């Protein structure tokens, strides 16, 4: 029996249309729009002005405060304006607009394709490099990586877990990266191990990617302390706590971090970015994005400069189908629907799913038949039908007792409800109210 997490979970149709599409480079666009907040935490502060000439890899906004990240120019050219945009999450934020001229990289980046195995930097230097190069978690959470590498006093990390699960349907960017950049990823993992001062790293991959499992297993035999583990296919195995439970059978207590069970989790894409940052001194200004959807003529996996308009990417995939009803940034389970195709690609965008109108429409809500399917699939053993009822009725105190704030918004409950009830919509609402309530209580 393959390992997996024990409670709940679902298995939606995989639709991995682009699993066999090698990663190709999307041409540098004519202009880019680079938002200053592409990470969890405080937005970075812009340090360039209109009219400035910037080069690829140059810092254009510096991190502000502890939880933040540097932002780099992904192209060379002139800053045409600094303005507010509505980002892919629908929030207003500042962005730097750059008109592209050529592609001149800053000299410190090593542009050779040679694989550099030897890790010269010390643990502290690695952490500092991750801060400078603006590395954030590329699985979607975009948490600044250097913070995860800074173990707070009193805590101990003894295991690094690498997330190669890619449990969201449609997405294949991590899968392709593992196949094409396996060695770089493993060097990246070794770098992370060195920074965390751990002897062991486990890479978890779901069994629907046997080629990646084989490939990395073979490569890992020449790396010290790294093992590859096949996992049963089950959503949401890519969630940190579920992955930890699956791999080492430890349960991260509610309200705590993986570090509280001695583990740090990083995504394979992040490991690759760390490799490039540490070995090649390359800041995070491009990433692999899966562009997919059943209506697209040429879905694929592309290396895309941050700030490229989503529409460019859709063009590269054969153009936007006429019946498009939704464009999802991320996977269909947890991704966000975009308002339009003009928004830029950002660090946390692992994929774009273009969905036909018909599929994108919600079905009519029926009464709850109390079938308990939502409870059965909830990976946290919450009772979604109840949480929805409580949120609907405004019984937030009771909802808090029922641990509404534990919900990780995986969407499994809404996915499986035979009555098409919008469980997660209401749970989100309840959750944010409860969090607000708790905050007010604490300030009193």
């Amino acid at each position, binding site marked *: 029996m393959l390992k997996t997490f024990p409670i709940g979970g679902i298995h939606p149709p995989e639709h991995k249309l682009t699993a066999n599409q090698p990663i190709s480079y999307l041409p540098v666009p004519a202009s880019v729009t680079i938002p200053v907040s592409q990470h969890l935490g405080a937005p970075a502060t812009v340090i360039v002005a209109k009219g400035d000439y910037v080069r690829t890899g140059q810092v254009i906004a510096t991190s502000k405060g502890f939880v933040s990240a540097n932002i780099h120019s992904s192209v060379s050219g002139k800053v045409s304006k600094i303005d507010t945009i509505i980002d892919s999450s629908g929030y207003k934020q500042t962005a730097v607009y750059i008109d592209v001229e050529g592609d001149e990289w800053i000299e410190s980046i090593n542009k050779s394709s040679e694989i550099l195995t030897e890790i010269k930097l010390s643990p502290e230097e690695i952490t500092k490099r991750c801060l400078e190069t603006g590395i954030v978690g590329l699985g979607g959470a975009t948490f600044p990586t250097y913070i995860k590498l800074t173990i707070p006093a009193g805590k101990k990390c003894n295991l690094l877990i690498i997330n190669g699960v890619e449990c969201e349907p449609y997405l294949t960017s991590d899968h392709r990266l593992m196949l094409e950049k396996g060695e770089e990823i493993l060097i990246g993992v070794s770098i992370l191990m060195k920074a965390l001062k751990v002897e062991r790293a486990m890479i978890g991959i779901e069994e629907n990617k046997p080629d990646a499992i084989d490939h990395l297993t073979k490569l890992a035999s020449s790396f010290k302390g790294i093992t590859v583990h096949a996992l049963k296919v089950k959503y949401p195995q890519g969630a940190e706590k579920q992955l930890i439970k699956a791999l080492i059978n430890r349960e991260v207590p509610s309200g705590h971090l993986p570090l509280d069970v001695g583990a740090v989790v990083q995504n394979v894409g992040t490991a690759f970015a760390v490799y490039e940052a540490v070995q090649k001194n390359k800041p995070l200004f491009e990433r692999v994005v899966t562009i997919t959807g059943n209506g697209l003529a040429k879905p694929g996996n592309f290396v895309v400069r941050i700030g490229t308009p989503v529409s460019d990417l859709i063009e590269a995939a054969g153009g936007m189908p006429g019946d498009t009803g939704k464009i999802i940034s991320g996977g269909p389970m*947890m*991704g966000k*629907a975009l308002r339009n195709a003009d928004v830029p690609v950002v660090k946390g965008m692992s994929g774009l799913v273009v969905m036909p109108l018909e*599929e994108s429409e919600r079905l009519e809500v029926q009464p709850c038949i109390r079938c308990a399917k939502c409870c059965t699939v909830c990976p*946290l*053993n919450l*009772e979604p039908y109840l949480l929805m009822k409580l949120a609907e009725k405004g019984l937030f105190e009771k909802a808090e007792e029922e641990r509404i704030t534990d919900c990780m918004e995986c969407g*499994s409950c809404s996915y499986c409800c*035979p009555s098409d009830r919008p469980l997660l919509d209401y749970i989100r609402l309840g959750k944010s109210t409860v969090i607000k309530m708790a905050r007010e209580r604490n300030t009193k």
Partner: protein
Amino acid sequence: MSNLLNISPSPHIHGEETTRKLMLGVVLALMPALLTSVIYFGAGALIVVATSVSSCILFEYLLQRFVLKKPISITDGSALVTGLLLAFNLPSNLPVFIIVIGSFVAIAVAKMTFGGLGNNPFNPALVGRVFILISFPVQMTNWPVPAGIKTGYADAITGATPLAIIKEGLKNGESISQLMHKVPTTVQMFLGKMGGSMGEVAALALLIGFVYMLYRKIITWHIPVSIIGTVAIFTTILWLRHPESNASPVFHLLTGGVMLGAIFMATDYVTSPMNPKAMIIYGCCIGILTVVIRVWGAYPEGVSFAILIMNAFVPLMNAYIKPKRFGEEVKYG
């Protein structure tokens, strides 16, 4: 951008399951038992089913259309399931008007007054059944014995159910070994060749339905297994202590409504608990109550009452028996 994009929140995909598909799955799972019933009891079985199903659906329609003035939901399949289950709990020669009354009570009283599907505390089919059992005790305990597919509706030969034979016999001082000659053999009972309500007799057919529902993930094993398990354990204890005054566990499991009740009635979504822990407790309580009523109660059969009694406790169980949440126990590594 010409067309406005839909920006509804995640998840953006939905599973295949719908209420109607689940209900039709239950209907399909009931088919082997219906077939067996027709083979043993003939036309009567079909007449009872047709009456019950059509009147359940009709009452639901009429009430929603004219009384409640609400959207019509008969297509969700739940009235169909109620109609089938009610029929399964009736003798195959029951007069049509009684069936219609039972259907009315099931749909109008037990389901619609509480707000329709999802809100009724008691299993509608069982409420209908118990109502007519109390109102028409003679007709409701006048069980046809299996006489083959050609049996007409009115000319069914009737007799007592095996459970009633045992209950009466024990009351009259007969011993189990004597009584065992008066009831069908274990194999006959397993196949359903005995007197009883039309859908409850064939353990084999009901088990096929159970396996199908498990496979389709319509229900989980918790409730049926805990009911059947508890009845088995409880009756084994009684039987081992006094084999001459207690029927064997096999007899208890194969007769009466244990199988039908455990697999199809107690697992009704609306009226059963929401988490595995509560489901098991609920099932065990039903098992115990069933045996208590059978062995010490006034009625030879107790499954319906046991389920209805436990239905009443479901809201309480849902409120106080909680699943263990992920990460609840603080375990530091």
